[in-house]
């Protein structure tokens, strides 16, 4: 009898846990059938690697309460190690390519073992400063230890020299895509499971209150250390995938810009939720790849989005989504659609018009002399005539004014959707 209830209980609790993973896997497998171009595959590969790296980073930031400013080095060193293995014919010829990221992970983990031994003693500012210092130190090494880092031009390899894997030589981008997807799923599931283990739970406890955790029998330092090492491992896996995908690593993979980017990605997505960094990585990669083709100022917009997220939605995009979970459970999301549209539609139009003004300004200042024409939203404008300025100025002002006017209604609708019926 007890056995029976136990198994049914276990089954009913496992289904909702497994379902999102199955959906994610199905989605990943179908994506290349919809987006078939090579550039789309490149974007998706980049996205997958960023997801792994961001999830690894969030083991520190979100789960362990450790703010690192130098996490790119663990991904980078994993990647460099993998390129060296690619170039070591005698060894690389013996291993199939899909195994290679494990070596990236081991090297990332090895470095994390060394650095973590002294950096995890304290959390907070001390940890952040050490991570910054170590990050800079290793980035600086790239021009000093040329043998390993290849100096300014970096090092490159050829993934196709590996042992063929069931006849696949990974010449085509789509083959690499499925390899990346495999590692994405494995890493994400492992990192999720980690968060459910005693280690993962105590990482949360140490984040919230290290002193209390110590009086429960756990050394806060060791808990941080283990999290750090595990995070280094998964960052290294991401690095190995980077090496496979791009076949080249340079100083750019180690430096502070890269470390800052992953912090931005994680925070944008929401460090408080396991899936937050996944959203962050998808949004950021899209901005980085698609938006950067459209405008040189993409980083300005990403920066503005980041600042807006930090100021208005400290829980990140995932936090913003989860704010709607109670309303969704009560089946009231439809009540929100109208008030939301009244704010978001003019708000987005207004913001886009504001961006156009910024683009006009940029063109006016930086275009070559005599070049007065620029294309914005499939329309050609003369930057020296007042027409586009007045037009976009009016749209921006009008749109944002409308959005602001609708905001109280939206707030009220949100509040109403979240109040229990009969509670008042």
């Amino acid at each position, binding site marked *: 009898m007890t056995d029976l209830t136990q198994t049914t209980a276990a089954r009913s609790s496992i289904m909702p846990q497994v379902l999102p993973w199955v959906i994610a896997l199905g989605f990943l497998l179908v994506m290349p059938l919809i987006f078939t171009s090579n550039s789309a595959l490149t974007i998706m590969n980049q996205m997958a690697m960023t997801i792994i790296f961001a999830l690894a980073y969030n083991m520190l930031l979100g789960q362990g309460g450790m703010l690192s400013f130098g996490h790119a080095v663990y991904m980078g060193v994993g990647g460099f190690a993998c390129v060296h293995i690619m170039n070591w014919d005698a060894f690389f010829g013996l291993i199939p390519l899909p195994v290679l990221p494990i070596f990236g992970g081991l090297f990332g983990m090895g470095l994390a073992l060394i650095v973590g031994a002294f950096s995890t003693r304290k959390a907070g500012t001390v940890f952040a400063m050490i991570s910054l210092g170590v990050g800079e130190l290793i980035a600086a090494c790239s021009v000093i230890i040329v043998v390993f880092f290849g100096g300014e031009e970096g090092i490159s390899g050829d993934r196709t020299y590996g042992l063929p894997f069931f006849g696949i030589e990974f010449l085509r981008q789509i083959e690499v895509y499925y390899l990346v997807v495999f590692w994405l799923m494995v890493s994400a599931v492992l990192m999720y499971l980690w968060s459910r283990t005693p280690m993962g739970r105590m990482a949360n406890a140490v984040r919230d209150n290290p002193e209390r955790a110590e009086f429960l029998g756990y050394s806060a330092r*060791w808990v941080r250390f283990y999290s750090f090492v595990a995070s280094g491992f998964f960052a290294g896996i991401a690095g190995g995938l980077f090496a496979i995908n791009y076949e080249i690593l340079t100083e750019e993979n180690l430096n502070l810009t890269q470390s800052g980017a992953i912090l931005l990605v994680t925070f944008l997505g929401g460090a408080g939720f396991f899936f937050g960094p996944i959203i962050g990585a998808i949004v950021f990669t899209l901005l980085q790849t698609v938006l950067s083709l459209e405008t040189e100022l993409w980083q300005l917009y990403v920066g503005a989005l980041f600042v807006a997220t930090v100021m208005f939605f400290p829980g990140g995009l995932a936090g913003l989504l989860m704010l709607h979970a109670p309303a969704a459970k009560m089946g009231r999301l439809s009540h929100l659609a109208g008030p939301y549209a009244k704010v978001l539609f003019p708000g987005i139009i207004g913001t886009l018009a504001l961006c156009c003004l910024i683009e006009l300004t940029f063109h006016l200042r930086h275009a070559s002399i005599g070049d007065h024409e620029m294309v914005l939203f499939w329309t050609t404008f003369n930057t020296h005539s007042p027409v586009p300025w007045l037009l976009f100025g009016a749209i921006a002002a009008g749109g944002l004014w409308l959005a602001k006017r609708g905001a109280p209604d939206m707030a009220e609708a949100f509040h109403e959707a979240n109040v229990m019926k009969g509670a008042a």
Partner: protein
Amino acid sequence: MNMAPQLVGYPALELENLHKSFGKAEIIRGVDLSVAAGERHAIIGPNGAGKSTLFNLITARFPATEGKVRLHGTDLAGMAPYEINRLGLSRSFQITNIFPRMSVFENVRCALLWSMGYKYSFWKIVSRSRALTEAAEDILDQINLLNRRELPAGVLSYAEQRALEIGITIAGGADVIMLDEPTAGMSHSETDYIVDLIRKVTENKTLIMVEHDMGVVFGLADRISVLVYGEIIASGTPEDVRADPKVQEAYLGAALEEEH
């Protein structure tokens, strides 16, 4: 976790000539104290008597300037909090000290992990362990927070947070429980509630609690020590202590001074 019977009556905690100075100010001036296993011992004294300092010395939050603290005969000098905890001493804090962003249930479950042998493992899924879940629910039941289990601990009321803190403190199965002013800032009814709770959960354990108010500990403690200006001026049963003229003079005098 019942105490081995042969331990009853033996000293669980011994303080020997304990001194603590901060700069020139000597806060603890030679404290000797022995608390028998299974005893409920209260340390009371007026504000500024050094109660919390003494408490922090015992749990090695601060190093002692001079003297020794022994838990079941083991000298605690130089030990980290987690090492002391593993020897069977658990403490609460005067300022509520829980894991605010984790659920009430998780707070208690984390407190159980070490004593149930999970250590630093990362190959076990915590929610899979029935024993762990049941133990956590048992603690929640004892502190009357079962119906709050899924709430983030940070949103509980003050009295509930204090109850949770006591739950966390006892969860690890330590046989020496130290509570630092568990009723500080509480109303009368809340105080009565917490005192009953403490009595219930420290059954068969050694309890050392620091308290400002003698009334709170009177019905609870087997023995009371009175700390005034860093020295224990009296130690004995509640009746003896209350009748002691030195206590009446020093403690009540100081308490009166404070009121004026």
